[in-house]
């Protein structure tokens, strides 16, 4: 057989070059992505004593806070991924579980760490500190290089497209409920109180209630972007009660 391969066959044929490039890249992609849909134990199951899932999607307010986090580019300086490394365990606490970001679209793991990791920052500081620190970081931490975000306190939170935003997340698999059946399903998975929060028809009302009760930005007169952002920051990494598990429990998922 006289098969004499010449690379100009490919190089002089744009169409073939394109097809072969895509084939080469998709092999890499498939090998990395396909298993995630097949392997059952990549995402840990985390349930409380009553068998309810403790990791839940964000409430309407927290979810809007997350949008602001993304909009302001906080991820360009902050990661949300505590790696299973000694130094990080000592500084930040338990390593992040895959399950903890299962409802994040897109996830905020990040890789640039100008500031500290935020995966477990929830409840670490008071709302008062968060307000001051976001408005003027250097008033709290003199050597900080974090920018000031004063407008968050003066900008009212836009909730006009709240329902569409939640529906969009539902479309990519986040269990926000639209119908009664979906709602009942959530009651079984997360319990009634959480299921209420995840019901899209109640979203607006839930958001206002959480913002008023939480009073995150210290100003009750209106709901600002800072209310939403702090509600989001305060829930980060707080959904798993690690004191319920042996220190090696999550090793068995690997």
């Amino acid at each position: 057989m006289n098969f004499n391969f010449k690379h100009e066959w490919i190089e002089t044929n744009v169409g073939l070059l394109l097809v072969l490039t895509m084939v080469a890249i998709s092999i890499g992609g498939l090998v990395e992505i396909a298993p995630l849909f097949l392997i059952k134990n990549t995402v840990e199951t985390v349930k409380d004593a009553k068998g309810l899932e403790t990791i839940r999607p964000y409430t309407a307010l927290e979810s809007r806070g997350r949008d602001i986090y993304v909009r302001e580019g906080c991820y360009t300086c902050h990661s949300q991924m505590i790696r299973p490394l000694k130094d990080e365990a000592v500084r930040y606490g338990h390593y992040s579980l895959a399950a903890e970001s299962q409802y994040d679209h897109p996830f905020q793991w990040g890789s640039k760490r100008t500031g500290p990791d935020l995966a477990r920052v929830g409840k670490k500081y008071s709302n008062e500190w968060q307000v001051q620190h976001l408005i003027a970081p250097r008033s709290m931490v003199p050597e900080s290089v974090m920018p000031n975000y004063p407008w968050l306190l003066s900008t009212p939170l836009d909730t006009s497209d709240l329902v569409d935003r939640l529906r969009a997340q539902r479309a990519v698999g986040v269990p926000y409920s639209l119908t009664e059946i979906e709602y009942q399903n959530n009651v079984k998975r997360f319990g009634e109180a959480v299921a209420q929060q995840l019901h899209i028809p109640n979203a607006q009302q839930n958001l206002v209630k959480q913002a008023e009760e939480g009073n995150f930005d210290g100003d009750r007169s209106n709901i600002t972007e800072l209310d939403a952002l702090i509600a989001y920051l305060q829930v980060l990494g707080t959904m798993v009660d690690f004191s319920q598990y042996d220190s090696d429990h999550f090793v068995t998922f690997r």
Partner: protein
Amino acid sequence: MSKDKMQSQAVQTTGHAWDGDLQEYNNPLPRWWVWTFYLTILFAILYWIWFPAWPVAKGYTPGVGKITYVDAKGVAQTTHWNTRADLMREMNGLAAIQKPFFDKVAAQPYAAIAKDPELNNFIASAGNQLFADNCATCHQAGGQGKIGFFPNLADDDWLYGGQFDKIQETVTQGRRGYMPPFGEALSTAQIDQLANYVLSLSGEKMDAAKAETGKALFHSETAGCFYCHGDDARGRQVIGAPNLTDKIWLWANVPNADAPSIKLAAVKNVIQNGLNKGVMPAWGQRLTPEQIKVLTVYVHELGGGK
């Protein structure tokens, strides 16, 4: 490569010409490069064999590499190599170094810890680290605090008490200071009189007549300041009500003000609007009891422990 040299080597061209006469040399890759490339392929294959790598069916190839760590019950476990088990192993190592110290801290009463020089060294370094990671953002690096926000932990003036057990309680459970607003219950004149009295307690030169009326108000049922701040205005640590006679101010921005009118305004503001922003987070969930004990001694030794 110089032009001469390039032309002197009879390198093949790729064989085709563009624009009539443009040709492309077909230089073979250097031998060292090719071999490095083969070596990286070999490395990848060894890596696949040793570490978890390929997805198969509903699982993956765990690799032949093994790792042994001590689990939560103190039993040695051997499993395929993975980062979480590796972390357990590393933390076992760290615990082995720190354990004797933490055990000693856990076992001894506070008074004995403070006297043990070896433990003091340990607390100075471990406590410093814990304080920097968790507390310094609010109480500042040396514990000096911030007027209007966070109390000074290095002085001997305490809202909730500077004894070991009080500090431990503060850190474990957190605190929330609350003083009700008096803007509606009292008139502007009364608030002014009270403020004159409060400032006169720490030796500021105030309007004597107003301060005298303020004093009566302070101890009356109308204002009821004495319920929380005490008959002598020296505070009550069970509820975190501060001593108003010691010239130390956290919420009323008196120390930064020069003019008496500004000092007065600062105190009036506190009485008018009350206080509900002194929130010290609880650390009982985040830190271990031993870490909290180390921090307690560290804070106590910052300068003002009782």
